C-alpha cells in the first residue's frame, strides 16, 4: 500500500512547531469586544437578585445579558437540553452561568465580573450517590435522581456461582478526574460578510455546535458557521457546549466581534468531568480456571446535568466483564444525579472505570488458583465466535489473545 500503514508526516505539524497554528485565543478582530459569564458560587438554590443595573454602569461595560435576552433556547445538552446557557432561576451546581457581561477590553471584564453580587435562596443539596438514592432526597434530575438504569443478564447467576471453586467479592471506587487539556476554552464570534454568524472555536463536533448556536439564536442552521480552529487537546471535554453560545449571543446582540476566553480555573470549573464510580464486584471461577459468574453493581455520580451520563454508564455495564467469556452475569449500572460538577465524556467513557474492578478481580482469582495472571486472562479471553455479556457474537477482528501473546513473548511467560 502506498499511503495506509505508512508514516506520513501529519499535515498540521508545520503550523504547530512554528507557532503559526491558530487556536481560538489567537484570533483578533478590529473593535472586538470581550465577554464572560458570572458563575454560581452555590451548588443548589434559587437566584433572587443580581445587581445588573450597577454592573451596567461600570467602566467599559457595553452589555449585561441575562436569560431573557437570549433570542432562542436558553439551555443546551448533547442529549437532554438541560444545561442552562444562562440560568433562569434555579442553579444546580457551582459553575452554572448566571449573566453574560460584554465589555470593550479584558480589564473591564475582569473588574465587572468581580463586582457582580448575587442573592440566592440556598437549598440543601445532595453530594453523594448514596444520599441521592435515599427516599427523602431532594430531586435534582427530571422527576428522579436516577438518570439511567441498565441491567445486563445472561445465563443463571445463582447456578453460575454454584459452579465456582473460588469467589471474590469487593468494592472498588474510582475518582473524579479532569481532562486537563493544555488549551483553555475560548471562542470568537463575528458576523461574516454574507450575514451568517461565525464562531471560531476548538471543538470535537462543529456540526453539533452549529445546531446549539442556531437554537439559542433562534435562526436556521445555515445562518451559522462554526470554524473549527486548531484544537489544543480535548479528551471528551469539548463535546458539551462551553463558550460557543455565549460568544454567539454577545455578537448577536452587539453586532460586533466578541471573544470569550477562559482561565484555567474557569476551564476546570465549567466543563464535564470523568464519572466517579462505585463498583461492587462478585466474581466466581471454576476449578479449571474458567470464569463462571459475575455480579456487578455500578453507581456513577453524574452530577447536576445529564450530558452523556446514560451512555457512559451503559458503556461501563457493557464492559464490566472485561474481555472475557463469562456465561452467567447479573450487571446493573446506574447514573445518579447530584449537585456535583456534571460528569460526561472523558477518554474511555465508562469503560475506563470498570477495569479497576474487573482486572483486580482477575488477579485476586489467579492468585487463588495459583495460576499466572497473564495465563488466567489468556484462557478466559474472547476469540472469534465468543459471546459478550450482551449476547453479541464477536464475528471478526478479536485481537485480545494476540495482544496477550505479545506481552507473554516480551516477558518470556509461558501461556
Amino acid at each position, binding site marked *: 500500500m502506498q499511503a495506509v500503514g505508512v508514516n506520513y508526516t501529519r499535515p498540521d505539524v508545520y503550523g*504547530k*512547531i512554528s*507557532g503559526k497554528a491558530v487556536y481560538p485565543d489567537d484570533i*483578533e478582530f478590529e473593535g472586538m469586544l470581550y465577554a464572560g459569564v458570572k458563575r454560581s458560587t452555590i451548588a443548589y438554590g434559587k437566584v433572587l437578585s443580581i445587581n445588573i443595573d450597577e454592573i451596567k454602569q461600570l467602566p467599559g461595560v457595553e452589555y449585561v445579558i441575562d436569560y431573557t435576552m437570549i433570542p432562542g433556547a436558553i439551555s443546551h445538552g448533547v442529549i437532554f437540553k438541560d444545561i442552562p446557557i444562562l440560568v433562569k432561576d434555579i442553579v444546580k451546581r457551582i459553575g452554572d452561568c448566571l449573566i453574560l457581561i460584554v465589555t470593550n477590553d479584558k480589564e473591564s471584564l475582569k473588574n465587572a465580573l468581580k463586582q457582580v453580587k448575587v442573592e440566592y435562596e440556598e437549598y440543601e443539596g445532595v453530594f453523594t450517590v448514596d444520599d441521592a438514592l435515599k427516599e427523602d432526597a431532594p430531586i435534582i434530575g427530571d422527576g428522579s435522581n436516577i438518570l439511567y438504569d441498565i441491567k445486563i443478564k445472561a445465563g443463571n447467576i445463582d447456578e453460575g456461582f454454584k459452579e465456582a471453586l473460588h469467589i471474590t467479592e469487593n468494592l472498588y471506587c474510582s475518582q473524579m478526574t479532569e481532562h486537563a487539556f493544555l488549551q483553555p476554552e475560548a471562542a470568537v464570534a463575528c458576523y461574516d460578510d454574507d450575514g451568517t454568524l461565525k464562531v471560531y472555536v476548538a471543538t470535537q463536533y462543529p456540526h453539533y455546535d452549529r445546531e446549539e448556536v442556531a437554537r439559542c439564536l433562534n435562526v436556521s442552521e445555515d445562518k451559522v458557521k462554526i470554524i473549527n480552529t486548531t484544537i489544543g*487537546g480535548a*479528551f471528551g471535554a469539548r463535546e458539551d457546549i462551553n463558550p460557543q453560545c455565549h460568544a454567539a449571543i454577545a455578537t448577536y446582540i452587539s453586532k460586533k466581534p466578541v471573544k470569550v476566553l477562559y482561565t484555567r480555573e474557569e476551564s476546570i470549573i465549567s466543563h464535564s468531568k470523568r464519572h466517579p464510580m462505585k463498583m461492587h464486584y462478585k466474581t466466581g471461577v471454576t476449578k479449571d480456571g474458567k470464569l463462571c459468574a459475575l455480579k456487578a453493581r455500578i453507581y456513577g455520580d453524574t452530577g447536576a446535568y445529564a450530558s452523556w451520563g446514560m451512555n457512559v454508564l451503559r458503556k461501563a455495564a457493557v464492559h464490566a466483564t472485561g474481555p472475557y467469556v463469562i456465561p452467567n452475569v447479573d450487571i446493573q449500572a446506574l447514573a445518579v444525579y447530584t449537585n456535583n460538577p456534571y460528569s460526561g465524556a472523558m477518554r474511555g467513557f465508562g469503560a475506563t472505570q470498570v477495569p479497576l474492578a474487573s482486572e483486580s478481580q482477575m488477579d485476586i482469582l489467579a492468585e487463588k488458583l495459583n495460576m499466572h495472571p497473564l495465563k488466567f486472562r489468556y484462557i478466559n479471553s474472547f476469540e472469534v465466535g465468543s459471546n459478550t455479556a450482551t449476547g453479541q457474537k464477536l464475528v471478526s477482528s478479536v485481537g485480545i489473545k494476540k495482544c496477550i501473546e505479545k506481552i507473554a513473548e516480551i516477558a518470556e511467560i509461558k501461556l
Partner: protein
Amino acid sequence: MIEVTLKINGKMYTRKINPMLRLIDFIRDEIKLKGTKEGCGEGECGACTVIMNGKTVNSCLVLAASANGAEITTIEGLSNGDHLHPIQEAFIEVGAVQCGYCIPGMILSTKALLDENLDATEAQIKEGISGNLCRCTGYTKIVEGVKIAQKKIINSQEGD
C-alpha cells in the same frame, strides 16, 4: 503607563504599557506574536515559556516592565525563514507533536537546555523539560525528539 523596550527575536520594540502588564500579554497582545501560549497563568504548565537573556522563563509570571532591555526569543524567532531549527525538524521526524499547544514552550525549553548542555543525558533531558506539561504525548517521543536534535546539532557543528 511606562515606556519599555524589549528585543524580541532580534527586533527592538518600544511600547508605553501598564506597569502591571505581564510579559506574555506584551508578546501576544502588543507585539501580536501568538505562538507563545497561555495554559495556566500561574507558572505551572510551561506553555508560555520564552527564552529571556539565555534562560527560560514562564512569561505569565514576568512583568513586561521588569523585562525592560531584555533579549527575548519566542517560537517565531527559532526558524530562519523557511529553514527550520534542528529541534523543530527532530520533533517532526519522530512524531513528537499532537495537539501542539505545549510545543512552542517545549521547543524553547529544549533549546535553552541544549544551548547550555548539548550532551544532556536522558535524565537531564527529562529534568530540563519537566516544567513543560504535555497532556497528549506522554513525553516519550518528545524525549526521543530531543535526542535526535542533539545529534543533528552536533553533526551540523562538525560540518562547520
